[in-house]
Structure formats: structure tokens, C-alpha cells
């Protein structure tokens, strides 16, 4: 281990984190009755079986991860859902403790793990700035010093004394990001903050992140948007099933990641413990699985509920870099599933409006309210769209803004 005057801001050695999933912690918290009945079973001589069941439910979210980071390095964390990116950030930010291993941190750590955590709708914008700042570890003097910058960045001057429950989603997001983005810290952890907001705001956030990294901060960045990662980071760490499988230049890491995703289907492990999870996704066009521009398109999604659920669903199309292109979202439809029930749903388009190339199919499952999500995964299923001689288009004309389609048919099967 390097000692005094070394330049490492972050040292991670043999870091592991064990979670218990499956039967016992399916309910995520215990009840007295459960504990008592387990104690009875143990007394009844079934120790061996219970132990085996516990072992089967063990899940290493991180396993023997070691790396070191110098001051000012900008690290992009890559990996599939369930690969351990978020767990790593949670341990770095001290929200959860590692099972094994050791972490050395030099400097203050600030996390932008979820924009708007701790915001309260009844409080005004001004009150929320102070509360949120305090939650993120700032004191009053620091918050006051950054206050004007935060307000200017969020563009909410006129609404400072309005309860944030009356804010638009855009205003809310801007304010929340602004507080976190003006933290005084040397190590910044950023997880998917760009998932919300419009394109202009995302640009602004990326700009702010670049600005912060230019002033010498160490940055850890998680995003499904590869172009954002490429823009911000200089070094990439690729996690696969909790292990560090690549550590190097960001562009190499991104291509390694994209390669590894080529054949990825849906892994059940990634959704272990979720109340509602996809079992299968199948994409079809007329008479086969080959998809082409201008041809009919069908996406069949099979869901399984692990408890009684009421939810809404959207099918997402993203480009290879992870930027969202389309949402097929029947937002007038509230769907329900009983515990243990499986059901298939079909999204159908008369004409697929995607240029030839490679894309990601994804899913959003939620309750309608924003941040009320059970699942939001843009990269569940990779597919290709082929050329179609019947369709004439200008090949150079491409758009990257999100479209919400309304002219598709949605069927519960």
C-alpha cells in the first residue's frame, strides 16, 4: 500500500459485497412471525436445509474488486444491470458497508445518486435547497455561498418561494441537480442523473460535470448513455457479474462493453428480488424475426409478478450508445398482475420508423408518478433493423430526440 504523500484519491482492495436474495429476503424485511417460525424449523432439526436455502439465495454483487484512482481522474463505470455498478457507488458513498475488503478515500465524497432525494413537495424551492444541501453534507455557510449559483443554474428565481409540488418536472429536476452539482467535494459519484430532463438540460448537466472535472475533481460516472460517458470520462472500468473485467482507456472499455452486450438476452439474475420482472422479450415483423424500416413491428413482452401489482408499461427503443429514441407508452392503461402470475403483452406498429442499424429494446415499468419505477432498463434486448428497398429516405437525416408514439396498438394477451 502506498503511504504518505501518494497521489491516490481512491484505493480499493479486494472489495466484496454479499446480498441475500431469494426466499427469506424476498420480503426484504423480516417479521417477528417469520423469525419465530424459522427458529422453530431450526429447532426441528432442519438446520441443514435452511442453511442450503440461505446459501442458494446468496448473491455477490461485488467480488474481489481492486483498483486505484488518482486525483482528477474521470472514471466511467460500465456494465449490465446487476453487474455491481450501483453497489460500488453505494459503498463508496458509505450508504452501505462492504462485506469484505478495504477502501481508502482522500477528500470529501459527494454523490449525485438520485436527483431530488430528500426533496419535499410541501417545502418551497428555497427551503428544499437548504434541506437538500444539508443532506448532502454542506453546512449553512457553504449553502449560502453557493445559493445564487444554484438558483441561476436551475433557472427557478421566480419560484423560489413556491412549494416544489407546484413545480413542473423540468423545474424540479433542474433544481435538484443544481444543488448536488454545487457541492464542495473532491470525489463526485454520479449515477444516471442524465436519465431525466430534456435534451437541453442534459447538455447543461454534462457541461457542468465537465466543468467540475476540469477543476480537478475525481469523478465516478455511471450512465447508459455511452456518448455522455465518452464525453466526460478518460478511464473506464467494466464490471461483469460483480467482477472487474476491464480497466483501461474509456474508448476501449466502451467497445469491450458493447461487444459483451451483443448477445445479451434477459438475465433473470439481474432482476432477482424485484416485484415485477420481464421473463422474455420477442421482436417480430411480418413472417419472421427480421426487422426492417417501414415494415410492421411487434414486440411481445412477458412479465412475471412476484406480488400483486398495479402498474403501467412502456417499451423503449434506444440507440447503441444508450440514448432513448422512442417510447411506446399506453399511458391510459393501468395494468394489473396477481402474485405469481405471468402475462404477455404486445406492442404493434404498422411501420417501424427506425433507420437501418443496431438498437436496444428496453422496458419501463412504473406507477405513473415520476420516480415511482419498478424497472427502467434501456438495454434489455439488442436488435438490428435492416434496409428496405420499398422505403425511400435521406440516409443522412437522423434525429435523436425522444418520440412518444400514440399510433401503436397495445394488447394484453
Amino acid at each position, binding site marked *: 500500500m502506498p503511504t504518505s504523500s501518494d497521489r491516490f484519491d481512491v484505493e480499493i482492495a479486494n472489495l466484496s459485497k454479499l446480498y441475500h436474495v431469494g426466499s427469506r429476503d424476498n420480503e426484504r424485511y423480516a417479521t417477528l*412471525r417469520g*423469525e419465530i417460525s424459522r427458529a422453530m424449523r431450526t429447532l426441528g432439526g432442519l438446520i441443514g436445509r435452511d442453511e442450503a436455502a440461505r446459501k442458494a439465495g446468496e448473491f455477490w454483487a461485488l467480488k474481489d474488486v481492486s483498483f486505484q484512482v488518482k486525483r482528477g481522474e474521470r472514471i466511467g463505470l460500465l456494465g449490465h444491470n446487476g453487474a455491481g455498478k450501483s453497489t460500488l457507488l453505494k459503498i463508496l458513498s*458509505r*450508504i452501505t458497508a462492504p462485506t469484505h475488503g478495504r477502501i481508502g478515500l482522500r477528500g*470529501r465524497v459527494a454523490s449525485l445518486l438520485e436527483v431530488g*432525494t*430528500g426533496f419535499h413537495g410541501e417545502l418551497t424551492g428555497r427551503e428544499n435547497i437548504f434541506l437538500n444541501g444539508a443532506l448532502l453534507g454542506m453546512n449553512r455557510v457553504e449553502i449560502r455561498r453557493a445559493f445564487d449559483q444554484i438558483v441561476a443554474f436551475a433557472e427557478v428565481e421566480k419560484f423560489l418561494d413556491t412549494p416544489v409540488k407546484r413545480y413542473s418536472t423540468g423545474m424540479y429536476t433542474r433544481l435538484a441537480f443544481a444543488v448536488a452539482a454545487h457541492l464542495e467535494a473532491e470525489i463526485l459519484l454520479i449515477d444516471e442523473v442524465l436519465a431525466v430532463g430534456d435534451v437541453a438540460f442534459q447538455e447543461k448537466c454534462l457541461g457542468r460535470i465537465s466543468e467540475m472535472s476540469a477543476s480537478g475533481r475525481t469523478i465516478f460516472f455511471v450512465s447508459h448513455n455511452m456518448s455522455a460517458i465518452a464525453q466526460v470520462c478518460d478511464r473506464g472500468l467494466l464490471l461483469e457479474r460483480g467482477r472487474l473485467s476491464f480497466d483501461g482507456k474509456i474508448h476501449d472499455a466502451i467497445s469491450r462493453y458493447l461487444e459483451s452486450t451483443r448477445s445479451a438476452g434477459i438475465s433473470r439474475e439481474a432482476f432477482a428480488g424485484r416485484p415485477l420482472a420481464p421473463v422474455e422479450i420477442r421482436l417480430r415483423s411480418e413472417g419472421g424475426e427480421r426487422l426492417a424500416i417501414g415494415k410492421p413491428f411487434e414486440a411481445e413482452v412477458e412479465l412475471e409478478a412476484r406480488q400483486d401489482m398495479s402498474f403501467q408499461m412502456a417499451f423503449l427503443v434506444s440507440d447503441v450508445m444508450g440514448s432513448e429514441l422512442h417510447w411506446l407508452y399506453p399511458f391510459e392503461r393501468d395494468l394489473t398482475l396477481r402474485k405469481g402470475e405471468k402475462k404477455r403483452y404486445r406492442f404493434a406498429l404498422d411501420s417501424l420508423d427506425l433507420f437501418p442499424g443496431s438498437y436496444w429494446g428496453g422496458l419501463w415499468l412504473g406507477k405513473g408518478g415520476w420516480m415511482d419505477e419498478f424497472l427502467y432498463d434501456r438495454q434489455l434486448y439488442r436488435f438490428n433493423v435492416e434496409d428496405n428497398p420499398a422505403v425511400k429516405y435521406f440516409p443522412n437525416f437522423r434525429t435523436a430526440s425522444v418520440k412518444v408514439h400514440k399510433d401503436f396498438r397495445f394488447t394484453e394477451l
Partner: protein
Amino acid sequence: MESERLDKTTARSESLLVLSAGRSSALLWKDLWRFRELLAFLAWRDVLLRYKQAAFGIGWALLRPVLTMLVFTLIFRRVVEVEASSVPYPLFALCGMLVWQFFSGCVADAAQSLVSNTSLVTKVFFPRLILPASTTLVNLLDFAVTLALFAGLWLFYGTPSLGPLWALPGVLLWMLGLALGVGFWLSSATVRYRDVKFLVPFGLQLGLYASPIGYPISALPEKFRFWAYLNPLSGLVEGFRWCFFGSSPADAHGVWLSLGVSVFLLLSGFVFFRKMEDSFADII
């Protein structure tokens, strides 16, 4: 400006922070100091939210103890005919209510403090002790309101004799410590066992009658007094009555017993909470 600020913060925090499995306890006091303002901010948030959209507002803090005092006056004075002391009964009962309202408010709020802030616990780091502790601060405000009411009633009854008021800070400290201790126990237990949510209101209902709020300990038969003093609230309430009315407790040893139980609850609650703390984010 930007870089200048950064230089200052880096200079301040050059030391290496080492985290490993089960080592976080050593950092507690440093973390508590760093997040000391959050305690006030969270309490301030809860005060702001507490009486928002309640038409009667802070008036509830006054109305609740007054109503209970009236009910007590009716039950214990007229029906059961408790002979309290030389002090007018409503004043006597309100003194008990002062403590009870604070204690029960703290216990009910603290038990829910972690679970009702799940998004904070799973998404931001700060010493979790702050959550149950801030509910104590919030209830202290209600306590102050009731205390003013008590002073008013005392004047109304023509200023009966006063006890050793100088001891009041000590008794207040006792009350805070007890509320914190029980709060630590219940808040961390609720994270693991949601059953606590059902037990707490039930326990509080019993507690109001099991504690000497509407009656003095001296009204109990001699052989029950030891058991009564195992309830930390017994000694605490008698302590308050001693401060305010100068009435000596039924059994001085009993008061020490109550104090001992309170200290035990505070220390064990703290230890239990710290033991559970690392797993909060994973199991909440």
C-alpha cells in the same frame, strides 16, 4: 473562485478515510460533527410540515394536553377519587401530561423515523442516529408550548408553592435521554421488524395508565411500588413534580431505580442502533 474553493476544501480533508467491513464505528463522532446542522434541518423540516394544512395549526399542541387533563380530572378526581397532594388536581395532572405527551410523541415519531425516510436511508449517507434524534427536537417544541400552558395554569391557581426549580435542567436531561434511548431501540427494530409499528400505539395506550400521570405513586399499594418504579417514567414524573411542587417522591430509592433503567435504555439503545446501522440500507 472555483479552484480557490477547492484548494481550501482539499487542504481541510487531506487525511485518508479508511472504510472496511465493520470499521465504520470509529468515524461516528467525526461524522456526527460534520452533519450536526442536518439534525436541526430535519427537525425544522418536520416542524414546518407538522402543522401545514392543519386549520387549527399549532393550536393542536395546546388542545391535546388540555383535553387529556380535563378527562383525567373527571376520571381520577370525580370517579376514582384520587387524593393527589396539596396541589390542585388539574395542575398535578397537567404536570404528568407534560412529560407523557413529550415521551409518547417522541416514541411514536422516532419508531417511524427511519422507515418513513427510506429514500434518504437508501440513497444518501449521513449518521442515521440523526433521524430518531431529530424527532426528539421536534417534540421539544410541543413540550415548550405545554410548559407555557402549565405556567399559565399555575398563575391561575394563585401560584401554589414552588419546588426546587434549579433541578429542572437535570430532569429535562433525563427526559431527553430516556426518549432518545427508547427512540434508538424502536427505530432500528422497526427497520427489521415491521411488527413494531403495531406494538407501539398499543404500548403507548397502556403506558398512559401504567405510568403515574393522573395519579401519584403514593396512591398505589406499598407492594406494587417497586414494580411501578421499574417503569422509568414513574421516577421521571415524580422528579418533575418535585421540581414544580416540592412534593417528595413516594420512595427515593425508587426514583434512582427509574433513573438506572433510563440510563440502561439509552446506552443499550445506542449500542443496538449502531449494531444494526450498517445493514439499514440493505434491509429497510
